[in-house]
């Protein structure tokens, strides 16, 4: 890319490089919240069928690593309600 810039004296190669970096970032950022929202909704719906919990005591975190990403779901469930649900 730098070699190309060396031969083409204009500013267009700079524009191209800036756009490629920016859009790679924005496309990822644009997709992430949607995916998390969908995952959150569907996971909570499944768990909600069996146990009762407070929707605001739920934490969902997506960590993107280089080769692996981790999804952490942390749901606080009151003990008495869990016992009831599991016994039923």
């Amino acid at each position: 890319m730098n070699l190309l810039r060396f031969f083409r004296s204009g500013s267009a190669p700079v524009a191209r490089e800036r756009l490629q970096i920016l859009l790679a970032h924005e496309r990822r950022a644009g997709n992430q919240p949607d995916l998390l929202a969908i995952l959150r909704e569907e996971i909570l719906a499944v768990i909600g069928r069996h146990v009762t919990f407070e929707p605001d005591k739920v934490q969902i975190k997506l960590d993107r690593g280089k080769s692996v990403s981790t999804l952490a779901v942390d749901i606080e469930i009151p003990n008495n309600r869990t016992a009831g649900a599991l016994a039923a």
Partner: protein
Amino acid sequence: MSQVLVVTSGKGGVGKTTSTAALGAALAHDGAKVVVIDFDVGLRNLDLVLGAERRVVFDLINVINGVAKLPQALIRDKRLENLHLLPASQTRDKDALTQDGVEKVIAELREKFDWIICDSPAGIERGATLAMRYADAAIVVTNPEVSSVRDSDRIIGILDAKTARAERGERVDKHLLITRYNATAAARGEMLTIDDVLEILSCPLLGIVPESKEVLRASNVGTPVTLNNPQSAPARAYFDAARRLKGEQIPMLVQGTTASIFTKLFARKAA
């Protein structure tokens, strides 16, 4: 089979309305029944570019509200009897544009026209999302310039997520129309090249419209550039793009450059 197209871009001022008028006129010129719809509620301009500004009586919002019937609001072009305009209203109340209303109007137009071309407002708000909502295919108008390319990328993402087709799990075909292209500046490295834009947006190319005084000249007199000066470089580019929309295979040329004149000569000999 009718086709619903949306002409969209995200960024304003890149040539959506010019392209809607030029492509609509090119398709109607070849015999198809065409209606162009202005979705820019409050800031309508398609009427002006088509030279029909003094003939607007009823508009899209009137039809949606039931104040007027669809045939009453349609304006037939004075030069091409196959070309019709459904104007936007000048009301500032954008909520007047409803999803159900737009769906009904498009369904009714599908019965009467071969091509329904929706001219989207700039931005990604209600007007823009409703303009693309019922489209079968999209024409993404892009200038070879950083902010336009970025906004086109955004719009392509929205086309894949928020249209009725996308929600049904179907595809909205996307066509890139590069406008205001300056081949000389691109060759000097002063402007993004066609290849640069295609590589960044990875979307099939519908046409390359060169920067030209003819576009301004046509809008000054209220005639689509394809009718005002059909032999001009931008008009030829729009005619080619219209034929590609119909599925014809046409070599991609930058009209108005020396190379294209040579290629044209050889193409004519071969034909």
